[in-house]
């Protein structure tokens, strides 16, 4: 027993260490390129972590996580533009709005027992519906999108240097790490994984799968909403394609699967590795549009075939491959 609780404490120590080291990056380098890279890697980590809560721990594979990302982004932008609301106040609204959309989609699909590819298709369809709505209704600026005016100040959540944004998104990532840690070391996470592994067996021992999955999708959507709000603050622009298009959905799930589903550090590893790959190929092939998506696809296929547990589970996968060869014909 002491083994389990001390490994939990060690993981918390690792999270603290990670937070301190990454937070120090802007103190070491002033290079805009380096800071931008770290910031974007953290942003990719955040959406992978968000997907991992529902997909990795809950086994509900969403193909439309952009649904929550876009909702957070639009609420963040519209609250400032139409309501004149301070972005720090808009942020919890964006997070809450995304969670509310998660609650709605979850209630609808889990009530009717949608699983596997059916659930994936429903999330994909909802993201597409929201994209079309965002193009059509007036308050989203339609296909033109929304521009948040530039007014640099920390009080306005617009920072003069990338360092401010880096610390902001690092804060989100650390919260997501702590929530993931709690999933691995608490009853809710145990129930969520039980539902993932066998829903009927979980029901037989007193777990209500509907409520557990609903809580998971809300939690997952909330972090996705935070990522959307962050995106708006960094780029000061959002349009329906960016908000609800498939790119964000794919990036979220590929990073989580490549890194290792249902693990603490998998999404971090996956996001960093994919980000490095995307940057390298951009230098090699120039700005070939969509080349990063091709790379993601290839990496995903290779990982699913050779490392089904992702990068975080590389040790176990390799050992099993060896053992398999040893006992094979």
């Amino acid at each position: 027993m002491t083994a389990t609780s001390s490994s939990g404490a060690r993981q918390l120590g690792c999270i603290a260490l990670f937070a301190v080291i990454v937070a120090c990056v802007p103190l070491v380098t002033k290079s805009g390129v380096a800071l931008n890279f770290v910031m974007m890697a953290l942003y990719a980590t955040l959406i992978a972590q968000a997907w991992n809560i529902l997909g990795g721990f809950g086994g509900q594979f969403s193909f439309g996580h952009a649904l929550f990302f876009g909702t957070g982004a639009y609420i963040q932008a519209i609250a400032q533009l139409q309501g004149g609301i301070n972005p720090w106040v808009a942020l919890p609204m964006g997070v809450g709005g995304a969670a509310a959309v998660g609650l709605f989609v979850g209630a609808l699909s889990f009530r009717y027992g949608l699983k596997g590819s059916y659930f994936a298709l429903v999330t994909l369809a909802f993201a597409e519906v929201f994209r079309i709505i965002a193009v059509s209704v007036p308050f989203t600026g339609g296909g033109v999108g929304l521009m948040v005016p530039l007014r640099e100040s920390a009080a306005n959540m617009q920072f003069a240097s990338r360092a401010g944004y880096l610390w902001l998104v690092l804060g989100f990532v650390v919260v997501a790490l702590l929530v993931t840690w709690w999933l691995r070391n608490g009853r809710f996470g145990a129930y969520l994984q039980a539902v993932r592994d066998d829903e009927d067996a979980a029901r037989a021992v007193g777990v209500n799968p509907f409520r557990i999955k609903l809580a998971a999708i809300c939690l997952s959507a909330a972090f996705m909403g935070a990522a959307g709000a962050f995106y708006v603050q960094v780029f000061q622009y959002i349009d329906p394609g960016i908000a609800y298009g498939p790119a964000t959905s794919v990036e979220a799930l590929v990073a989580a699967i490549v890194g290792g589903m249902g693990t603490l550090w998998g999404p971090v590893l996956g996001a960093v590795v994919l980000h490095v790959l995307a940057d390298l190929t951009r230098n090699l092939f120039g700005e070939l549009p969509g080349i990063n998506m091709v790379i993601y696809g290839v990496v995903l296929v290779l990982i699913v075939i050779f490392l089904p547990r992702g990068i975080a589970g590389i040790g176990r996968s390799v050992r099993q491959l060896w053992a398999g060869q040893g006992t094979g014909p």
Partner: protein
Amino acid sequence: MSEALLDIRGLSRSFGGLKAVQNVSLTVREGSLSALIGPNGAGKTTLFALMSGFLKPDSGTVRFAGQDITGHEPHRNARLGMTRTFQIVKPFAAQTVRENIAVGVHLHERRRSAALLQAEQVAQQVGLASQLDKPASDLTVAGRKRLELARALATRPRLLLLDEVLAGLNPQEIAGMMPVVRGIADSGVTVLMIEHVMQAVMHLAEHVWVLAQGQLIAEGSPAVVTADDKVVEAYLGHGTAARLRKASAGATA
């Protein structure tokens, strides 16, 4: 000790044209160890599903500990103290034996560390203590049956519904498992088991119900039930009882 813990009245359920369970009534007394037997396809597992809430009956009522629980979701019944196991075992394959059992413990223990600790005691009770940190997917069939039992037992049920925990085990493994079931009943848990292994039914059960083609055809002590003509014919075919009697009369003559 002889209060009715589970009481079902006129329970029926059809699938299309197949009447899987027809008008079944039975009462399980608190503290008893009883068995539900019958040929393949008799509707035993369907009856379990109706009792535990995995299926809703077309008609009839289920009462547990004095409450009407007809049509309640299984997780609500588990919280009331009725837990079932599955004939086709359902381990949480990605998790260790300890983590599997802890999911059951969590029904009455919120804290993770305490649940993982209590899982050890339950594992000891079913003889899984040496395999606590193995992934559930690495267990043998016998191990998985024990895990299925352990996870249900961890919820501290008042009534345990065991669906063929001995099926698929070799004679040695059956001999190892029987004292485990006996021990659970002796610890005060009411047990109702579906079982094909007659040796176990004869040794363990105080009371037996026989289900054939969705209907109860006999009940009583194991000795009474196995001597019943209707039961013999349900298993071996119409007219068998008479032929067997004639044959044994001829042998003794």
